[in-house]
């Protein structure tokens, strides 16, 4: 297998999770614009990844909490099974950008399972985040809602999040009432979900809390907050007009297109409109557009160079001109000169989930059980569905400390150990020297370019027991050891 051209490799690292041997053929004959279109207009590719769970030639999932009475893989109601399903999707999807953007939104609306499970029990806590409608009753889980509109309209997404059952528990909207307004969601919708610190005031927080009074939660009749209640029970958004503060709410920024800053007093029956007015204003606030532009600079272009002001203005304009539609913005970014500038290749620090997925794609997943990647990922600092707080994970260099770096390198050892025999068997026909082994491996495993000293260290390792002999055991040892060094090194942490 030869690599794709460097521009498409770059695209697939950033807009996807790298390329496996099995996927190379999909992209080999595409031009760069065709590859962008393939990723961005992903409705043209089958959404069949969940159907392929359990098929041969795919990574395996196992019921993480098998008991004598319950041994089904249950990704709609068990959080560890759901973690496996998401890893499976990222590994095997035909729509990598949809998964990539879902990951982006999960970090943006960072909601943690533990608090949900404390509130609602383990089963309902998981269902709130990951339920994919189809088999069980109840609304979609939060991350399924994000996946469905991963490149949709941010206005609709934010409205969905304001009504999302997991969010109502996570930021305490379930108890936001006119007698005791709850500030948590009111603050974070401005600080974290839209305009950001510096563009709202403390009185805005009080006003936003009052706007969302009555945006509460109601359980289905069969709901209990036991750890193992009814699978079909659920919680959902309810609008309680009698709990809504009907008074006027004044903000420090315009709410209406005429510049008006005050949401007028309304009768209870119309009170839901308050929240819609505020969401509309926040979504189209120029600082929201700029904040996304900066976040997407870091996500797609570079974490090494600060956001180029020209990029921020151009991207913010595309967002505003398209009335908060995300797809045209991402298409603009991926085809922009900033994205294709070769200086920006390998200029982003891989999140643990990106690192792990790419490592598995490039080294292999034979006999791999996806339940085993959870604990190494936690040691690297990223457990899916468990962001450290509502601001999401600390990205960029903050992923890296001695401890998390060691966790990454040791995951490389685990992957290499698991694929040891398969690697050797697949390399044997092609490799008859140490140079050949390094070159062939670098065709599959793709760290940022090496300087001379680390490249030399790899050759020294391959020849540490003397000249290449070409025995089976030598290839077995050195191929897996080399995979461990390549995937575990600093150069591989960059995408």
């Amino acid at each position: 297998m030869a690599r794709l051209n460097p521009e498409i490799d770059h695209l697939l690292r950033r807009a996807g999770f790298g390329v496996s041997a099995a996927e190379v053929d999909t992209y080999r004959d595409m031009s760069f614009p065709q590859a962008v279109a393939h990723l961005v207009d992903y409705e043209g590719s089958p959404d069949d990844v969940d159907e392929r769970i359990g098929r041969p030639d795919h990574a395996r999932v196992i019921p993480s909490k098998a008991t004598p009475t319950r041994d089904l893989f249950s990704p709609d109601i068990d959080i560890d099974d759901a973690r496996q399903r998401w890893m499976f999707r990222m590994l095997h999807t035909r729509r990598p950008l949809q998964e990539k953007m879902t990951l982006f939104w999960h970090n943006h609306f960072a909601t943690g399972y533990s608090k949900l499970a404390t509130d609602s029990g383990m089963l309902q806590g998981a269902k709130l985040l990951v339920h994919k409608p189809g088999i069980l009753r109840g609304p979609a889980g939060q991350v399924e809602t994000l996946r469905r509109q991963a490149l949709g309209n941010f206005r609709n997404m934010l409205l969905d999040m304001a009504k999302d059952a997991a969010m109502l528990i996570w930021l305490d909207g379930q108890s936001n009432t006119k007698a005791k307004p709850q500030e948590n969601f009111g603050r974070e919708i401005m600080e974290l979900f839209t305009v950001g610190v510096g563009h709202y005031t403390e009185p805005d927080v009080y006003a936003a809390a009052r706007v969302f009074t009555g945006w509460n939660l109601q359980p289905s009749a069969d709901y209990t907050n036991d750890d193992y209640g009814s699978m079909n029970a659920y919680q959902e958004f309810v609008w309680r007009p009698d709990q809504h503060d009907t008074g006027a709410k004044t903000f420090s920024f315009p709410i209406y297109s005429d510049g008006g800053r005050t949401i007028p007093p309304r009768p209870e029956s119309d009170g839901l409109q308050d929240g819609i007015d505020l969401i509309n204003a926040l979504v189209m606030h120029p600082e929201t557009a700029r904040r996304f532009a900066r976040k997407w600079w870091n996500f797609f272009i570079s974490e090494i160079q600060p956001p180029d002001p020209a990029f921020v203005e151009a991207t913010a304009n595309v967002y505003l001109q398209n009335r908060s539609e995300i797809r045209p913005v991402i298409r603009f970014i991926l085809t922009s000169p900033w994205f294709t500038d070769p200086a920006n290749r390998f200029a982003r620090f891989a999140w643990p989930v990106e690192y792990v997925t790419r490592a598995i794609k490039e080294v292999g997943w034979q006999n791999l059980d996806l339940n085993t990647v959870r604990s190494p990922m936690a040691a690297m600092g990223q457990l899916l569905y468990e962001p450290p707080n509502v601001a999401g994970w600390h990205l960029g260099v903050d992923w890296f400390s001695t401890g998390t770096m060691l966790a990454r390198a040791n995951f490389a050892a685990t992957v290499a150990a698991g694929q040891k025999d398969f690697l050797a068997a697949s390399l044997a026909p092609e490799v008859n020297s140490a140079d050949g082994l390094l070159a062939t491996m670098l065709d599959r495993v793709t760290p940022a370019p090496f300087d001379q000293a680390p490249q030399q260290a790899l050759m020294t390792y391959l020849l540490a027991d003397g000249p290449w002999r070409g025995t089976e055991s030598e290839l077995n040892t050195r191929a897996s050891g080399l995979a461990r060094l390549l995937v575990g090194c600093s150069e591989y942490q960059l995408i």
Partner: protein
Amino acid sequence: MSVSRRIFIRDGVATVTLGLAAPSFLSAIANAQGLPNRRLVVIYLGGGNDSLNTLVGYRDAAYYSRRPSIAVPAGQVLQVGTDASGMTMGLHPRLTGLLNIYNEGRLALVQRTGYPNSSRSHFEASDIWGTANPQSSTGSGWLGRYLDTLPRPLDALAAWNTTGETPRALLSGQSGVPAIPNASTYTFGSPNRGQAALQERAAAQTMAANSAPGRPHLAYLNGASRGAIETLDRVALAGQYTPTVVYPNNGFASALRTIAGAIVRGIGSRVYWATTGGYDTHADQGGGGGGAYANLMGTLGDGLGAFYSDIRNQGLAADTTIIVFSEFSRRISENGSAGTDHGAAGVMMVLGGSVRGGLYGTAPQLSPGHPTLENNSGDVRYETDFRSVYARVLDNWLGVNSVSILNGDFRAGAPAVF
């Protein structure tokens, strides 16, 4: 130095440790540099600790009227006496582990610590406590700047962070801090055993030694890799520690046990960092007897109690100081969810075998309009600038000049805890 080689097999992956035989060798590095053998343990209560329920003014009628469902009943508090303003105070009933230390005169409770115009954003506020600059939540941290004053070459374990992410307080331009949540899993993995595994380790070390000219981001990652590989053996030594007490079974206590192991094994770290989270109690925080906040207090008090006993049993308490802080306290009145929203000034704790314990500063009085309050009496007004506590720790404990590290003189009004 004698070296012993052990190879462990875990999950089919060989892990290689080169064990250093003589523990005394390790702190010799620090001693050779002429540093005092003192250490600071920093505990961050993540989420904004509700100080009014940590240290309760249980004779203040307004405390009960403003917190009808979450107040700690007067009969349950652990009494700690009367402060300079005549307020009678008590600790949360689940802080029995801290009460013992208080009664030994080794726990200082510094009331109403904070700064002007306190940030109510978790992220900005915790960064401000890190930078020690209310005007800027970016840049280096106060402990990072302290580490920068230590002699070079800096020992790779000059500080030890037990959390996965480096907190702002430990950030610096010149001194990387390793993150080691668990000493016993801090090992070098390999798909091979024996000689090949050792060869891999050597190759990884050489690769990480590349200074990566022109690619500072890569150099940064290599620094993390190098720090890991170079500290593996000493960390493994700390991981072999058997405590003198039973620690509770939770992440916070496990971090404290790791720190105790590092201290007892003479690793020589000057600063340790641990975090316990869950303090963002917007809803159902509970009162004295049970509920979320009582569990938080149990985790804190039992963990610190075990840690303090352990290091005291080892004869090391007099060289150890622990400070406890949170990014802000919470609003005085409870909200509609039987919880509390983001507030302002709160309690800092300083404890250790050389600490002068007691109640410092004055408690807030919660009747609306009282001068100890702010924000229309919604929040507690700060009395002691948190930087003056830092100043005291830097000047009188770590033995460095606080003025240069804090970029200002905050010695005035500092609580005389040492």
